[in-house]
């Protein structure tokens, strides 16, 4: 006889709630239309700024990757006249340090500020994975212009392990970059035996694995898939293994300085002096291509955008910062910012006095529904796992003729569009 008692109380409570809801609706018709969804909402008071977090790598070896994107977001803000729905746009800068630890601390700082509407970032996949664990749960939405690890979205059309709702990117999924590099090596260079080296970071591991998978699907053989430590200097043992496995090509999509040592010591290991060396977008920087040992190396990476709109963007960038874009992902970050602005404009509920409400769930859904958005990098359409890019991958080569990174990027040997 006890059971019905709590059932009754629940039923009673439910009925009361319904009555209350019905009454509330009747009492204030139209006055307070906005009610926040399950993920909460941001309310921007009249005159207050709309805050956007820009969460990029701003220090250390990969600072140029983040700085480039931060500048691109600033150009995007200026293109909007610095305003969104009559409110000034405020950029909150955060450093992801290209590391998991700073991904966590940065995300904690973002969720501690409930006025932040959305996040542009991070620069590195390794920082994005722990950051999203915090941001996703708190209802935030993040759009990255340079995360490329397949782990963050999807692998072979299936949801990847680190994919979380609220994550989007305008950069390519490295499955595509891996496929591009594998196609180039197999079809254009005609090589059939490759070795891959990563350093344990999600970006490097994802790309090396994607390359290996595509390469084997094409009919090539990955004779050795191995890894090195981030701080490792003595590469002779690992390169000796690579040589012993009979690799004709070494694909090492890692970072400096480990990549410096691989390129330098490969020439000293018997059996590897003739092997082809290939890196990826993480190494496409002035400091790397200037090294004498990187002459002759191939690199896969995102294609430089073309077209008058892009030229215009570069003009504004150069006018404001005194140099041409310094890395490969500025256009992606610019597009990410514009996707974010468009979604804010779409879901914002404006009141007569200028107060703006942005529901976090609706905002997230609006970003996810982005389709046919014309950006600098192409037509941006988000899939169910947050991949929004219109990917174009090129393979470039650093030869004797190329002295700067711009010249290397312009020496395109192969273009891949899925």
């Amino acid at each position: 006889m006890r059971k019905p008692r709590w059932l009754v109380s629940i039923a009673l409570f439910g009925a009361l709630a319904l009555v209350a809801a019905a009454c509330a609706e009747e009492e204030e018709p139209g006055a307070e239309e906005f009610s926040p969804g399950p993920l909460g909402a941001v309310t921007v008071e009249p005159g207050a700024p709309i805050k956007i977090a820009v969460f990029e790598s701003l220090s250390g070896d990969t600072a140029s990757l983040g700085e480039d994107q931060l500048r691109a977001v600033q150009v995007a803000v200026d293109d909007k006249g610095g305003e969104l729905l009559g409110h000034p746009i405020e950029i909150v800068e955060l450093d992801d340090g290209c590391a998991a630890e700073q991904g966590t601390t940065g995300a904690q700082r973002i969720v501690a500020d409930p006025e932040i509407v959305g996040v542009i970032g991070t620069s590195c996949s390794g920082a994005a994975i722990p950051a999203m664990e915090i941001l996703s749960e708190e209802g935030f939405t993040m759009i990255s212009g340079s995360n490329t690890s397949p782990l963050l979205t999807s692998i072979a059309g299936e949801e990847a392990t680190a994919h979380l709702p609220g994550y989007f990117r305008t950069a390519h999924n490295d499955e595509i970059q891996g496929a591009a590099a594998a196609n180039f090596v197999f079809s254009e260079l005609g090589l059939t035996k490759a070795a891959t080296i990563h350093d344990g970071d999600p970006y490097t591991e994802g790309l090396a694995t994607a390359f290996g998978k595509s390469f084997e699907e094409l009919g090539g053989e990955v004779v050795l898939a191995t890894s090195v430590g981030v701080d490792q200097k003595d590469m002779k043992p690992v390169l000796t293994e690579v040589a012993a496995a009979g690799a004709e090509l070494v694909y090492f999509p890692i970072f400096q300085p480990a990549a410096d040592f691989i390129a330098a010591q490969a020439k000293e290991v018997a059996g590897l002096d003739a092997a082809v060396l290939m890196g990826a977008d993480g190494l496409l920087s002035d400091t790397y291509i200037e090294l004498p040992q990187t002459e002759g190396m191939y690199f896969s990476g995102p294609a430089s955008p073309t077209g008058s709109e892009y030229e215009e963007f570069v003009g504004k960038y150069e006018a404001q910062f005194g140099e041409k874009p310094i890395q490969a992902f500025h256009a992606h970050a610019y597009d990410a910012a514009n996707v974010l602005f468009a979604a804010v404009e779409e879901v914002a509920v404006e009141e007569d006095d200028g107060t703006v409400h942005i529901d976090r769930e609706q905002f997230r859904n609006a970003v996810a529904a982005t389709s046919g958005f014309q950006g600098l990098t192409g037509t941006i359409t988000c899939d169910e796992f947050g991949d929004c890019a219109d990917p174009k991958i090129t393979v470039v080569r650093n030869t004797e003729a190329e002295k700067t990174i711009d010249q290397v990027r312009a020496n395109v040997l192969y273009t891949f569009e899925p």
Partner: protein
Amino acid sequence: MAETVGLKARRAGRLSGVDAFLWFVRVVVLVAVAWGSYKSISSGRLTAAQWRGLIVAGVSQGAVYGLVALGYTMVYGVLRFINFAHGEVFMAGSMIGFFVANGLSGTAMWASLPFVALLIALLAAMATSTSISLVLERVAYRPLRGLPRLVPFITAVGASFFLQYTFAGLFGADSKAYPPVEALKGGFTIVGFRFGKVQALVIVATIVMMIGLYLFVERTKAGRAIRAVSEDQEMASLMGINVDRSIALVFAVGGAMAGAGGLLYGLTFGQVDFLSGFLVGIKAFTASVLGGIGNLAGAMVGGLVLGLIESLGPSLVLFGLGVPSAHQLQDVVAFLALVMILIFRPTGILGERLAEERA
């Protein structure tokens, strides 16, 4: 009589659990090493020439560890504490060696007399490291002499950070690439062992410096004074030996060796940055413990053993055991060797003398 027998039996009974466990670990490690090596060699994955190449690489790397380890072991020998700023003394030598080499690389001498130019860089690196080591001793350690050993140890950690960030502030945090030396490109083969010219230079330079150090410590008056101070400071001072001077000399010699190691390391890997000293310092410390801390020959032996373990370990043992990405575990292998030595032979490979005299 009966009582002592009973005591022994009781002690044996009490320790047997720990002993059994240690024996178990010993057997597991030995079996793993033997099995991994057998699998690696029998698979014929690497040719004999490639194995020899790894040995040469290990010896050349180990020589640099040995040079730096000398500084740890000598300071420990006289003062009984670990000078943790020694890695930064090494980095300073490497850094200044870079600036001198870089300055000389544009001159005609770099092309026509490369070894004279390298000798100048070597002397500059050694002089810098010696001075820094001396200043460290005078400013950071001498005022603390006689205090508990933990006090200079903590100061050493502080000095290490101070030096790292002073260099970062003075010369920037970016890594600096040594200029290429044409004369050191390529290599040659001696009895089947293929040496890169840089590797050969590192090994030869290390041998020369070791002989010099041996003669200095064993044959000169100052060397005898150092040995006396390391035996018994008080007694040495009663015999009219200037203890302060001898200790300063130990720091100077250790610094010079680290500076030379710094330049050789720079030539091997072609790069240096302000944090380069950290890992090398830890490895060299490991080498000095491996060889038996306080023992000069031990430092060199420890360095060579550590270099060989690092170079051969992943390919020989881990790869043979089927560990994926074995080479990422290079440092793990090195430090595992340290743990094994500390468990099974705490005095190190050549540590008997220390054990007899001071244990």
